[in-house]
């Protein structure tokens, strides 16, 4: 009987994706494209938030969108209808985008004509958190109807995003919701003290200007480097 021996490996399971993501960030640094990865649960208002945000940005920055969906092009059509460059990626059942898929999406856009590209990731608060897409900025949306306890259920997502957009704050005007924004802020800061939090309503436009202004400054700082 052969002897059992131990082989040291110490290799990160996501190392291959992270390598592709790092290379993508270098390439986008050379090409001067600021890539934003937008993640959230289904129905939190990703598409409308993107449209509202780009509306604010597009007087100063040229914007494009990569739409990811398991199997439809509803969102890409909505974005393209606004005259914005959009690519649809169907993930073929995958619950998230990885850096290789994003690179393929970027190949379909005229990057020389763009300053900012927003990835609308697959609607899901679990899986997209684990895959670096090559973006410079990770943004998530939590909408009021989802509840202020979501940082407890999806701590990984909240712990690694640079920005949290609390969307649908127009719901707070009605007494229908017991969503506590102060409680949410406290829970999120526990996981991620550095995170930027903006309260917005993509429907009424409230707060979008402040968020878009911040994003525009971040993008311009990157593009000027």
């Amino acid at each position: 009987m052969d002897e059992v021996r131990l082989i040291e490996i110490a290799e990160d399971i996501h190392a291959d994706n992270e390598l592709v993501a790092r290379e993508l960030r270098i390439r986008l640094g050379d090409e001067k494209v600021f890539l934003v990865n937008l993640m959230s649960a289904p129905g939190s208002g990703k598409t409308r938030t993107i449209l509202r945000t780009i509306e604010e940005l597009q007087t100063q920055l040229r914007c494009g969108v990569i739409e990811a969906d398991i199997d439809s092009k509803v969102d890409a059509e909505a974005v393209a209808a606004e005259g914005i460059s959009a690519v649809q990626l169907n993930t073929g059942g995958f619950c998230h985008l990885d850096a290789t898929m994003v690179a393929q999406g970027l190949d379909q856009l005229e990057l020389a004509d763009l300053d900012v590209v927003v990835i609308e990731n697959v609607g899901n608060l679990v899986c997209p958190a684990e895959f670096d897409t090559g973006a410079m900025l990770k943004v998530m949306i939590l909408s009021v109807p989802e509840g202020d306890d979501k940082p407890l259920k999806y701590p990984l997502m909240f712990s690694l995003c640079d920005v949290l957009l609390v969307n649908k704050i127009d719901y707070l005007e009605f007494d229908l919701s017991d969503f506590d924004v102060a409680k949410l802020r406290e829970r999120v800061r526990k996981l991620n003290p550095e995170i930027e939090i903006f309260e917005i309503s993509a429907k009424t436009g409230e707060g979008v200007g402040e968020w878009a202004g911040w994003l525009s400054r971040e993008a311009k700082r990157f593009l000027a480097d």
Partner: protein
Amino acid sequence: MHELQVTKRILDIALEHAKEQGVHQIAVIHLRIGALSDLEDEWLQRYFTYLSRGTLADEARLAIERVPIVVRCSGCAESFEVEKSALDEAVCPGCGGSRCELVSGREYVVANMEVV
């Protein structure tokens, strides 16, 4: 969840190392996975058993060590362990501060393997 994709990576990494080291059979693969991950141990093993059929890792067992969530207090820099369900109430045992940053809990590592 994406257990299938992750499992495929684990198998690829294990087979790569097995090939380099002239291994006949992989018996156990030790993984270190952060407690923040939602990957299910049972599904990792089921997918692994399926994907590894006919390879050097056929019938290998995945031994999964969960790396605890450790945070560092932004106030006094003390590190302490927190349960995933209690992240909300994490309070520094040193100074009572409640602002913390994550030190561990996000790991996804193939640590080592027992082979013949």
